Each structure stands twice: as structure tokens, then as C-alpha cells.
């Protein structure tokens, strides 16, 4: 029973918190760049404004174009609902492990890319093809990361891994470090952050994600934007729940722990947001075809992580 309640709270939290996190990142970035920047609540306003606008759909678009935003948002949200943020006592925790999580983000990407091509414009195509190229390397990296973690913790479920870490299963470990590194790289790529992509650009040559959603407007755009924000938060949560699971309440622990866990979670998220901002401002966007090398590196790191486990086992 409590599981369902926590689950609902968690799901709502994910959606409710996501714009704020994005806002914090933006704020931090503009501060770092010496601007005052908008308030962290700005994303909420943006979303609301978009919802108020009428949606314009290109003549050449099919029904898919209109359905896609809902699917994208839902898929991302469902994914987010799985990763424990402050308690792992949730209905959905056993319903999907990391592999399934990757796949759900895959669903979102699949429809984003299709939507990008639906209108039949050049930019949509650019976006989709680049997005799929990036994904074709990011997903394997993610899965390999899962692989090495499952070797360490003996499970593919994020909650399970977290629990394992809490039990002190993973001390400071080479393979864990490598896995974390590759996860970070993947997260950057998947959220279209600098240096892979620039969320705030509309420059034809560089943009990837933006190119796909170019044709969207009104509520559809709102959904897609929201989905993006949720995805960012999702990755932060994931990293937190796997590599810094401290404070996440376990099923067998009393409910109070969940509250402390929530507070801790907020702290973690804010920290990560700031870190992301710092990273983004300190690095330059790379050419599209360098991304392949970047993610290939991620994949390799994940692979190394797995190999290193044997090394540590062997000794």
C-alpha cells in the first residue's frame, strides 16, 4: 500500500521538480557567464506560456506528429518513475531494470526522431539522423555500464544496485569509477548538453535535438520541453541512486527515512545541477562527428569497467 503512495509522490515529484532543476542549471550558467539570468522558476512560466499558445501543425504532418509529444513525455516520465529518488519502496521498482529504462528512453528518442522527419523538412532530417547516430553509441555505452554494475552488484535493477552500495558492497573501485565516468558522458550526450549538443542553439550546423522539434509549437512543444527537463532530472536521479544512494529509504526501513531521503535528494540534485553548469561553461561545443569518438570513448570505458572487475576478482 505504502509502495503505491510513495510511487505516486515520486512520479509527481519528478515532473514537478524537473523544470526547477533546469532553471537552476540555466541560472547557474548565466551567473558563471557574468549575467544575472532568469529566476529558476522561469521554466515553469515558459511551459505555461507554451500551453496557452495555439498549436500550429504543418500541412504535411501526419497524425504521428500530434501523438508523438504525448508518447515522448509519457515514456520519459515512466522511466523517471522507476528510478528511486528518495525511497526504493515503490511499486514500479521491480517493474523495470536499467535495461528497460534504457529502452524506455529509446522509445522517447524513437518517436522524437520520427516526429522530426514527419513534416518533411531538411532540418528535421538532419536532427533525426544525427540523434540516431549519437544514440547508436550512447545506448551500448549505457548497457555496458549496466553490465559492469550488474557484475558488481549482481542485479540490473537500479534500486538493487543502490541497496548493494549502501551495504558497502562497492568501496572505492576502479570499475565503479569507470562506469560512473561513462554514465556521465552518456548522460551529457543524451540530454543534449554541451559539448555534444547545445540546448539553446538554433544554428543549423550544430544543432541536433532542437532540429527535430523545430516544427513544434504550443502544447506539443511544451510537452517535449517538459520531457527534456524530466530526462535531465531522471539522469541526475539515476546517478544519485546508483553512485550516491545515501539516504534512499529501503523497503524495510520506516517511512520517516523517506523524508530525510527527500531532503538529501534535493541537495544532491542541486549540487549536480551546479556541477553541470560549471562543466558546460568551462568546455566548448565539439563538431558533430567528434561526438562519435566521445561516445565511443564512453563505450570503451564501460567495457574496461567490466574487464577491471575480473582483475579485482583475480587478485
Amino acid at each position, binding site marked *: 500500500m505504502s509502495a503505491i503512495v510513495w510511487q505516486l509522490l515520486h*512520479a509527481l515529484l519528478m515532473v514537478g521538480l524537473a523544470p526547477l532543476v533546469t532553471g537552476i542549471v540555466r541560472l547557474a550558467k548565466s551567473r558563471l557567464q557574468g549575467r544575472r539570468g532568469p529566476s529558476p522558476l522561469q521554466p515553469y512560466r515558459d511551459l*505555461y506560456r507554451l*500551453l*496557452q499558445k495555439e*498549436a*500550429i*501543425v*504543418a*500541412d*504535411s*504532418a*501526419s497524425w504521428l506528429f500530434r501523438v508523438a509529444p*504525448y*508518447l515522448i513525455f*509519457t*515514456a520519459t516520465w*515512466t522511466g523517471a*518513475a522507476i528510478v528511486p529518488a528518495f525511497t526504493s519502496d515503490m*511499486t514500479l521498482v*521491480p*517493474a*523495470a531494470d*536499467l535495461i*528497460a529504462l534504457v*529502452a524506455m528512453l*529509446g522509445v522517447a528518442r*524513437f518517436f522524437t*526522431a*520520427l516526429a522530426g*522527419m514527419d513534416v*518533411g*523538412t*531538411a*532540418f*528535421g532530417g538532419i536532427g*533525426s*539522423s*544525427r540523434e*540516431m*547516430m549519437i*544514440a*547508436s*553509441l550512447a*545506448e*551500448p555505452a549505457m*548497457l*555496458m555500464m549496466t*553490465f559492469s554494475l*550488474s*557484475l558488481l552488484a*549482481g*542485479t*540490473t*535493477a537500479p534500486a538493487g544496485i543502490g541497496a548493494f552500495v549502501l551495504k558497502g558492497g562497492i568501496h572505492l573501485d576502479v570499475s565503479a569509477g569507470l562506469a560512473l565516468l561513462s554514465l556521465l558522458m552518456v548522460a551529457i550526450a543524451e540530454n543534449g548538453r554541451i559539448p555534444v549538443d547545445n540546448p539553446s542553439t538554433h544554428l543549423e550546423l550544430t544543432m541536433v535535438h532542437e532540429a527535430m522539434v523545430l*516544427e513544434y509549437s*504550443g502544447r506539443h512543444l511544451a510537452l517535449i520541453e517538459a520531457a527534456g527537463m524530466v530526462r535531465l532530472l531522471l539522469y541526475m536521479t539515476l546517478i544519485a541512486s546508483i553512485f550516491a544512494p545515501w539516504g534512499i529509504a529501503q523497503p524495510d526501513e520506516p517511512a520517516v527515512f523517506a523524508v530525510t531521503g527527500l531532503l538529501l535528494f534535493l541537495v544532491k540534485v542541486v549540487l549536480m545541477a551546479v556541477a553541470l553548469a560549471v562543466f558546460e561553461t568551462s568546455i566548448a561545443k565539439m563538431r558533430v*562527428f567528434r561526438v562519435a569518438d566521445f561516445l565511443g570513448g564512453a563505450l570503451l570505458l564501460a*567495457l574496461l569497467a*567490466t*574487464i577491471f572487475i575480473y582483475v579485482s576478482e583475480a587478485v
Partner: protein
Amino acid sequence: MLIAAAALSLLVLAMVAVVAGRFPVVHRMVYGATMVAALVLTGGALDHLTGMSAGEAPTTVLPIGLPWLQAHFRLDTLTAFFMAMINAVAALASLFAIGYGTHVPEHRRVTPLFPLFLFGMNMVLLADDAFSFLVSWEFMSLSSWLLVLSDHRSETNREAARIYLIMAVAGTFCLLAMFGLLSGYGGDYTFATMRHTELSGLPAHLVVVLLLFGAGSKAGLVPLHAWLPLAHPAAPSHVSALMSGVMTKVALYAIIRVLFDLNGGVVWWWGAVMMVVGAVTAVVGVLYAMMQTDLKRLLAYSTVENVGIIVVALGLALAFLDSGDRLSAALALVAGLYHALNHSFFKSLLFLGAGAVLGSTHERNLNTLGGLLKRMPITGTTFLVGAAAISALPPLNGFVSEWLVFQALFRGPALPHWTMKFGIPVVGALLALAAALAAACFVRAYGIAFLGRARSAAAAHAVEVNAPMRWALLALAGICVVLGVLPVVVSTALAFVVNPLIDVQMNPAAGMGWPWLSPTGSVKGSYSATVVILVGGLLLLAARFAVRVWGVRKLRRAPAWDCGHAEDIANAQYTADSFAQPIRRVFGSTLFAAREEVEMPMPGDMEPARHRVIMRDPVWDFLYVPIGVAVGRIADLVNRLQFQTVRRYLLLMFLTLVFLLILVAVRR
């Protein structure tokens, strides 16, 4: 009995189609009857699967074939599973063909062979001795060869058919030698005796190698896949669906039958070899697919990829079997069978979809299609389901089997052998890569063909296909969804199929019971499509509700914006080639030596600038072409013998005689 009747009725149908082929209605009737027969066969097989708990596998012996051997046929669970799968697909393909059959070029050459082809496949599954197995096997190859040849006026089809049959026969020779080894030098070719004779050492290894060559070439393992992307598209689409969706499975059946049933012992590196081959096949196959612009050929290559995934699963099962971890072996095998099942459904769905597109636009080239989703809503939607399923997206069936494969793979490092410990992560990486690329590949295929704007008049005036075809597509799409949403049910059934091969009863929901698919215990990771889709649906409604509440409902149709560059030329869209470009640069430049050439016209003249992509196929360049050249050279060399004088021929004879005499002289 029922099964036999249905199988024989297929032969009769072929006769009917030959005799009365000139009336279109006959073709519809034949396909209809084929569907019924296939349904009966499916039913029989399923009934056997469900009622199989007690009874032994019934064996029939017919007084044909080798005189001292006779023809043995047997229906055990493995056979029943494959029969159910094959005939189910075949039934829907025939349903499709009721509407499609008479639109095929040279359809009078197609209809009679369709039932024969199905008959051959069923016989392969039922055969219980090497002779009838190979006869049926070749029967299958021959009928499909003629089907590939049906549109025989095109040179390319003839070429494809030729290569196909040559490789098929080569494969048969391998299997022939293999059975020779399995049966020992006894001349008793029944599978029963093969089960009892335990091979070991070199013969056993040889068996596996020959099997991988023989059945592997049929299944399309790299580098023996060369015929597949030529032959499958050349056949009419409802036949391609069978060839790609089902015939490859028959080949896999052969592999399973021999490795897990007949060949007795296991050696770890067989599994290793299969995994490596499978992984390479998967990646290479999907990369090929990514580069194709011909829709049906793209699908054929993706078949290669999926076969690779299945073979990896089989190899993994072997490896576990060798290490004695039967439960994991069962898991891997279940994963493989599950993927085989899924693939046969969504691949036939996709091929039939391609057939529908071909039927109403007469175009197979992606760059001439576009915007079909609006013109052909049913076809477009079902194809979307197929594409999503093959890209392993939850909650569809493709994902479940992929999930199982990875679950099995993640237990690989438990294997004792170090090659495995280090190899399996790499295999896993390759599989993951293949999966991701598959998604990219089908986004491309679907996006170019069904979305955007029509790139040709044919595509612009396409119309939705007729009822039988629509129903076939819908049914297949439905099956894909069901197989995805009820993973526990399906994999329980599969565990039951696997049981006699590995003799361990695996419980797919070991962890937490229905509907949580958790074959390896609750802690090791679980997946519940049922719950996920439920929650997903709720969240979708929630999102919809939120938008309703806070948003406005207004919606305006307008010309595309496209950063203001929008112009109404369909050619300005991304084409299949341009979509593939990033991945081609990343992966293809080394593997396919892919280059891009731009021809700029001289200043002043009017012709457009041209952009060409040049790719080379390593398999052909380094394997098949050299063989062909070598044969040609030798043929030329030998051919000189035809043009000698009588005296020289006498000389030859004389030398032979003297040589033999010397032989006799020195032998003492």
C-alpha cells in the same frame, strides 16, 4: 493424423493451382485453402504442445525413402513449437496473399509453389531421419528457388536465384557429410541412433563446423549470408515474408536439433565460436541494412542481424550447458527461441507491409517513397508497430526477447573459462550496438518511406490496400503486441519446450510470480511489461489531462516553418542516403570503404551537381569474387584439353597406362 492430412492437402493444392491456374478466383481459393491448412497445422502443433505433458512424441514410419531405413517422422515439443510458429506466420501470409496473390508478376508460377514451400518446411521439422530430413530440406530450397525465379524475366532475379541455389546445395553437402559423421559408418540414418551414438574428439568438432556451414548458410550467418539479401527481396513479398521470417528459423531449428539433441556432448568453444559469429553477424547485418535504399533488401539484411542475435543466444546456451549451469542454459535457449518467435512475426509483418507498399506504389526504393502514412493509414500504422518491435522498444515483443538475451548474457561471466569471461562483455557490447543501430535503421526506413512528403508521383497517389491484406497486417501487429505484453505466459511455454533438451524446468517468473518476468530471481532484475504498459497508460492519461486543464485546445494547420527556409520541393527532404550519412561515416568508412563523390558541373552549363556514394562489399570482394575468378581460371586451363589432336589424346592414354604400370611395379 490431422497434421498429416493438412500437410498432404498442401500438395493437392499445388496440383490444383497448376491445373486451373488460369482463373484468378482459383488462386484466391488456393491461398484461402492454404491458410486453412496452415491454421490446422498450427492448431495441431499447439494442441500437441499443451497436451504433451504425459504422452511420448508420436513417431510415424512410412515405407518410402531408403529401403533399409524408410522414412521416419516424429512430432516432439521442439518440432511442435517451430511448426506452430511457422504455420501461424504462413497462415497470415496466405491471408495476405488472398488479396495480393494475383497482383504479383507471373503469379501463375507463384501460387502452386507457395503450398509446396510450406509443405517442405513442415517436413523438415517433422523428419526424424537424416535422409527424409535432407530430402525435405532440399525440397524447401528448390521450391523457394523457383519462387525467387518466378519473375524470371529480370536478369537480377535470375542471378539471385542462381547464387541462392548454389549456396543452398553447398550447404546441403555440408549437412550430408555431417549426418554421415553422426550416423557413423553404419548406414543407419535415424535420429534415434544418432542420439545414442556419442561422438567425441575430431568428429564431434567437425560436426559442429559442418553444421555452422550447412545450416548457417541457410540462416544467413556472415559471411555465408551473401545470397540472402539477393534472394529474399527477389521473391514476391508474401513469399519473402516466409523466407525471411520462417525459413531462416527452419535453419535455426536444424542447429538446435543437432547441437542440443543429436550431437551428445558439448565443448565450451563451440559456444564461443557461435557467439562470436553471431555477434559479428548481428552488427554487420544491421550495418548493411542501414546502408540499403531498397526497402525489401533492407529488411532482408535486418533478418541477418536478428539471426545473429539468436545464434548468440544459442551459443550462450551451449556454453552454460558445458559449464553445467543448466538453469542459465535454459534461460539462454528460451531467450533465443523467444527472439526467433518474435522475429518471425514482426519480420513477416514488415515484409508484408513492404509488399503492400510495393503493391500500391510499385516502388521499392526508399528515395521514391514518402508520406505513405497519410495515404495508407492501416499499412503505415502496422508497419510502425513492426518497426518499433524490431527496434526492441517496450512494451512490444522485440524488447522482451532482447531483455532475456541480455539477462542471460549478464550471467555469462560466471562461466569458468577466461575466454568467456573476457569475450562475453565484448559480445554484449556488440549486441547492444546492433540493437541501437537497428533502431536507427528502422527510424530511417519508416521515416523516409511513410513520413514526410511523397518523393514520387507513385507515392503521392498510393491508395490503401484491400481487406485481406489489411487484416493480415493487423493480425500480425496484434500478435506482436500480445507477445510483448504477456512475456511471462510465453516464456513459460518456451521453458516447457526447452525442458526436454536441457532437462531442467525453468520458471520465468521465479522471482515474484505473474506478471513479473524475473527468471533469475527477484533481486537479479525483473521486468513486467504488463505493469509498465498499465502505468504508462495511466501517466499518458494524466499528461493528457494536465494539458487539457492548463492548455488551450486551439490547433492551426499551416505550411511548414523550417527556420523560414521552407520550400515546397519534396526533394529538399532528407533522403535515405543522407540520413544514413552520419552512421556511414562513423562505421561504414572502414567496413565498406564508403566514399562520397561530388561532381560539380562546369560554370555555365545547366546540369545539376551530383552527389554519389560509393561502397564496396567486403564479403564479395574478398570471398566470393575470388572464388568465382579462380574457378574461371581453372576452367580455362582445363578447357584446353578439349582442343587436342587424336595423337595427343593417345599420348594421354599412354601416359596413364605407363603411370599405372610404374605404380604397380614400385608397389612391390
